[in-house]
């Protein structure tokens, strides 16, 4: 027994633990299960979204892998004696992005939210398309709705179903209004800036036509 005392005042056996086992993540020396904070993921995370191969385990061709592959519905490439089992990590919300909201004020400062075609519900619940989790001043469900209309390639904002109000550039939103680049949406204590990806200049339908 090698009794040690950590910076936070916990006693522990230095023979058994390299660092204080009571201080959670701070040790980060061996096999504690820890999460990565969103900020540090950054660009790599986006790279992964665009590269499904990273999510694709490589298997030798054999019956078990083939059966698993069938169950997961993966795209299959039988080149070079190895089966590629596609897909089965499913990146949730992998629909093509049409625009982004970036948090410029609030507890998700610096985070970006993907917008997809059609209606994007904004709220605090993690089931929302744009989930401003943890901000109690944002309604749990459908505080506001951002719409991308793929035929005319325009973005609109409209009020949700909650009693809370939303604002665009500090003007209250009571009916559907067109959104322009750099418009600032305010929901409770959170401010989101709007950036389009799709519009007249570029849209995914354009690529499909070529």
């Amino acid at each position, binding site marked *: 027994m090698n009794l040690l005392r950590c910076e936070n005042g916990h006693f522990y056996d230095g023979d058994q633990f390299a660092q204080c086992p009571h201080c959670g*993540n701070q040790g980060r020396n061996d*096999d504690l*299960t820890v999460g*990565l904070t969103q900020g540090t993921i950054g660009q790599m995370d986006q790279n992964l979204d665009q590269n499904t191969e*990273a999510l694709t385990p490589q298997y030798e061709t054999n019956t*078990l892998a083939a059966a698993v592959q069938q169950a997961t519905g993966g795209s299959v490439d039988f080149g070079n004696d190895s089966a590629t089992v596609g897909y089965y990590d499913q990146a949730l919300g992998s629909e093509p992005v049409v625009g982004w909201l970036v948090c410029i004020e609030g507890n998700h400062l610096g985070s970006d939210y993907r917008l997809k075609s059609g209606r994007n519900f904004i709220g605090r619940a*993690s089931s929302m398309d744009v989930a401003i989790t943890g901000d109690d001043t944002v309604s749990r469900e459908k505080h506001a709705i951002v719409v991308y209309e793929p035929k005319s390639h325009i973005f609109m904002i409209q009020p949700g179903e909650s009693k809370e109000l939303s604002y665009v550039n500090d003007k209250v939103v009571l009916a559907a209004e067109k959104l322009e680049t750099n418009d600032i949406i305010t929901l409770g204590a959170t401010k989101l800036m709007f950036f389009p990806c799709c519009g007249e200049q570029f849209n995914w339908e354009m690529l499909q036509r070529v």
Partner: protein
Amino acid sequence: MKLFTGRAEPETLPANNESHEDELTVSVEEDTAYFAVVTASDLHIGTRPYQQDALYVTETACSDPGTTLKVFGVLCDGMGGMENGEKAGRLTVEQLAKDLDELDPHSDVPAFFESEVAKLDELVCEEVAGGMKNGTGTTLTAVLIIDKDLYWAAVGDSRIYILRSNEILQVTRDHNYMLLLENEVRNGRLLREEAEAHPDKDALISYIGSGNVRFININRAPFRLAHGDVVLQCSDGLTKSLSDDEIKEIIIDHYGDLAETARMLTLQAFDAGEGSKDNTSVILMQYFE
């Protein structure tokens, strides 16, 4: 319903396993072929002063003409501060086990798992993390067998394996930072050595309680089980100590006694190597027809 958070009692297997297996395989030639799923589980606290792994698994079950056989297992590895991690794991296991118990076996299982993951994520976020993304949460693996069909769902770095005859296959990916680093290596933006040396490589990028689950492993189509298939759910305590081949050897060496296999897996994970040992938990299911 029982929830194991300490060392589990041996599963209710008949004392004489050989006769048990005979009984299960006896009526294959008749019109109604019986089939069964044997289950077992074990937890080991390792050298930790707390147990953040939690699991629930249904009892061994045999098919009964006219009814649908339903067997499931849920395993979580809590993370974050010691009390919160334990709470997140327990809460997730309790809620999902309850929902699986109530699930209509004829419903769309993959869709159920997807909506359940979103629901549990929100639950842990609100109940344990106080609505904040502060690194408190849990991994999740869930396995559901309906008659002869296997479904799975996994978030985080706890794994699901299928063992068939002499092959073992991990059917899930570890949703940790290494997954992103490997992608960078593949694209030539990072050296493999740099990736391997990264201090955050084990940090999770998708977990229940993150407020926005990025990745889940799920099978859209049912996986049809074959006689003798073993399904293993485990926390990273097992896979950090034992290689896939070592796990396979232990399962094959103890073939026929699943409860003993579960105990041997956690015990050998504890015995392997030096240094501190993480909580280790396993759920085993074996299909017979």
